[in-house]
């Protein structure tokens, strides 16, 4: 960012809650069905139909709120947001306005600026104030292509209409695009972690909007802000914010000023463009939804939900760093996925060697997961077997490369590590008698080197180890080899 300027950014995230049915009717929320297959009088907005709140939405909403450090309000009120659009069957969206489901959250995220290669510099904690997360229904979808006579008609698919959303709104606490980037990733992971949302941006069940303005450092007043939409991935969002910051600074410096408007990210041309100006802004005429009672959530319910909360990823990362002596980077990688984290914890404890467990997981195991598209809990290699491999490695019965080979084999076939070791002939020779024989032979055949070593050239020790390993076809236990070599030499 240009010297002397600062960016002011607030984020809005719409997260689809992971319920099986819609927020105000019993229709399925499944993705990719025939158009309008999952509809009923309620979500079609037929005359006389009335909404009934899906209890599961409250449960998932509570999980989401708690995962983001929000306070759940004991009473919240649904309101109607009125506007006309063909994908909005009732002519209003049932949302929440002045009494949201949850509010006043503080969320600590880890964030870092990135260098020109996108590499993070130094992750530091940052507190984000989350104003609210309210519950609302999604709209349907207008379809303008791929169907007959689209030059004359548009089509409406209401399968998505009535899908439950949590809208998460922050204060304008971000000062850079990377902070926003780290925040969205944090939210995404937290929601997935507690099972509140699949939070998959590609499927559209997590959508972001950013409010961006800039001002001179030291200025107290805010300048006009721009709302950014169509941010279809976290990366696009970061780019769009970055672009917008530079565009606004340039516009201010050129004396053109910035108009309050909504802009879209154009991913083809890598720039933002105007979608609608402030003059077109809607007056949504919010008022309390008379078809629904106030949503009352008991203290007991909130306490139960709190008690059911799993350890959250950041807390787990800190604990892994403290208990298992992992680096920030390793621990962060492990908690990037809930199932991997659970797998790791089991393996670390069962093997008694958290460090080696982490190394092997982050190299071989995660790669196998990525290659196979499987989740950690679907792996044929169990965490217990994984721990067995780590132990065998620690005991010196196999070497590091063999350990990796066993992981790959067990992961793909489900064979136990012991079987793989047997089949591959990885069993190491630890029998001192057998190794002594080889050592004696090597000493006898390499008289010059023996004399040189005994004369003080200690570097040659590695040569002897190499010879022994070669003679044993790599099966000799290196520890035992070392001991015997030392005594004989």
């Amino acid at each position: 960012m240009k010297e002397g300027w600062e960016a002011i950014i607030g984020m809005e995230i719409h997260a689809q809650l992971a319920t099986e049915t819609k927020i105000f009717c019993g229709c399925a929320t499944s993705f990719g069905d025939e158009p309008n297959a999952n509809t009923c009088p309620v979500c079609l907005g037929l005359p006389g139909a009335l909404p009934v709140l899906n209890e599961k939405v409250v449960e998932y909403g509570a999980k989401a709120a708690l995962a983001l450090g929000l306070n759940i309000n004991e009473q919240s009120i649904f309101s109607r947001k009125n506007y006309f659009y063909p994908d909005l069957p009732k002519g209003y969206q049932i949302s929440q306005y002045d009494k949201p489901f949850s509010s006043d959250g503080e969320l600590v995220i880890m964030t870092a600026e990135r260098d020109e290669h996108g590499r993070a510099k130094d992750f530091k904690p940052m507190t984000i104030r989350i104003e609210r997360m309210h519950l609302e229904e999604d709209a349907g979808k207008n379809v303008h292509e791929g169907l007959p006579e689209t030059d004359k008609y548009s089509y409406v698919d209401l399968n998505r209409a009535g899908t439950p959303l949590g809208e998460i709104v922050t204060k304008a606490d971000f000062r850079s695009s990377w902070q926003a980037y780290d925040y969205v990733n944090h939210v995404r992971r937290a929601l997935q972690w507690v099972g509140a949302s699949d939070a998959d941006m590609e499927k559209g069940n997590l959508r972001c909007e950013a409010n961006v303005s800039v001002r001179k450092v030291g200025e107290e007043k805010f300048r006009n802000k721009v709302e950014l939409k169509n941010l279809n991935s976290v990366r696009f969002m970061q780019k769009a914010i970055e672009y917008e910051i530079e565009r606004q600074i340039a516009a201010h410096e050129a004396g053109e000023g910035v108009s309050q408007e909504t802009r879209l990210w154009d991913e083809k041309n890598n720039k933002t463009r105007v979608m609608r100006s402030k003059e077109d802004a809607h007056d949504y005429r919010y008022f309390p939804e008379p078809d629904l009672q106030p949503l009352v959530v008991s203290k007991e319910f909130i306490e139960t939900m709190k008690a059911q909360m799993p350890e959250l990823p950041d807390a787990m990362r800190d604990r892994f760093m403290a208990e298992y002596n992992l680096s920030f980077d390793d621990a962060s990688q492990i908690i990037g996925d809930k199932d991997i984290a659970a797998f790791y914890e089991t393996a670390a404890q069962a093997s008694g060697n958290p460090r080696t467990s982490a190394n092997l997981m982050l190299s071989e195991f995660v790669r196998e997961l990525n290659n196979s598209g499987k989740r950690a809990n679907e792996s044929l290699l169990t965490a217990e077997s994984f721990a067995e491999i780590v132990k065998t490695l620690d005991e010196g019965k196999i070497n590091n490369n063999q350990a990796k080979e066993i992981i790959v084999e067990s992961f793909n076939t489900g064979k136990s590590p012991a079987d793989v070791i047997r089949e591959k002939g990885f069993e190491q020779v630890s029998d001192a008698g057998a190794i002594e024989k080889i050592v004696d032979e090597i000493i006898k055949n390499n008289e010059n080197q023996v004399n040189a070593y005994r004369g003080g050239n200690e570097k040659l020790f590695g040569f002897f180890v190499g010879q022994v390993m070669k003679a044993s076809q790599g099966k000799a236990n290196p520890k035992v080899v070392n001991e015997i070599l030392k005594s004989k030499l």
Partner: protein
Amino acid sequence: MSIRENIEKTINNAEKLNGELNSFLSIEREYALNRASEVENLSDDASLKGFAIAIKDNICTKDMQTTCGSHILHNYKAHYDATAVRRLKDAGAIIVGKANMDEFAMGSSNESSAFGNVKNPWDLERVPGGSSGGSAVAVASGVVRASLGSETGGSVRQPASLCGITGLKPTYGRISRFGLVAFASSLDNIGIFGQTSEDVAKVLGVIAGRDRNDSTSADVAVPDYLATISDDIKGKRIGVPRALFGEGLETDVREAVENSIENYRKLGAEIVDVELPHAKYGIAVYYIIATAEASSNLARFDGVRYGFRAEGSHELREMYRKTREEGFGAEVKRRIMLGTYVLSSGYYDAYYSKAQKVRALVKRDYQTAFEQCDAILTPTSPSVAFKIGEKSDDPLAMYLSDIYTVSANLVGVPGISVPCGLSGEGLPIGLQLVGNFWSEATLLNLGNVYEKEFPLGAKPKVFAD
């Protein structure tokens, strides 16, 4: 007579009188006769076995038209039964037709129907009241014993009064609104017309009670209304808010209602004075809240998914504009505009928000009054049935027809209109009793006893054989 013969007679009457009265928008001859044969096989426990009933055309009836008296839904058939309709069918009742009404229940005279006026059977030059005029006339003209209407500010009680029959608006939440096309959700109720309070009680017992499809329907036990309907009313306290018997009240109406107070005294009721200091704001508050909610509830009639769509539009906004301009009548458009205005940013606090505060004061008035009495007695309407066209150019005068009835909708308490006399011109007059929450049994008891002791003793000019 068999059920089928009886239904056939009902249908014949409906068809015969409809040319004069226009109370039905559709008469379901084939459906009703088929249904009559099916119903014969029902157990005799079915409490409404073979009972012919008319349904206001804003209550959804599966596979039958449900037009709301509006051009915008002129071709609309409901996809499902309203809960009240389903319960009626399950109890053996037979729907014989859909009743005419003011467009989207907005009106007090039935003149705003897109399908023509309903005529009052007592005098064909006069209105039947509204908005449930068709349902009222179907009963008043002797075609059916009972019908369903709907109320937002008096749309059952007022036409009941003008047509000389009994009309009940129950407690808000007593009858599910699922399937009642919304006008103003926080005020809307399904109501019941009957030739007598007993007919009303019979129907209410069937359709009342919690419905999980309506979050605002209450989980309050439904008593046996017929069991207490003839109880002695000795000692019942009837409150009279004298301050409301002033300006704008026709002399004949005042005299008939004063007389009914004396009659209740003779029956052993205790008459007490009550005050409802905020009732005078009722109409103003009502027209803010009702129009605000209506402006949102009627947004779904946009030509996109069902109903009327204007031809010849080239883009979306034009289609919306033309569809709603051509599809809605003047009164509906007036109320949508009023409602949109009172919810607009900058006006919300001055209108909608303030109206809700006054609504709470009206409610408090009633709660205080019910500490002193079991029911509050007033006229139902300030006038008898007026001439067609008399008030149709003066919306404010029309709105005042609801002056005695709107408060019960604002508060959510039940009210009943019972015939209590005839004017000098021989037009019926109704008394209104408003009770505390869930006191329908008391109101039906008070109504039934009055009807038995002081029957009207006259029939409309147009009446079924």
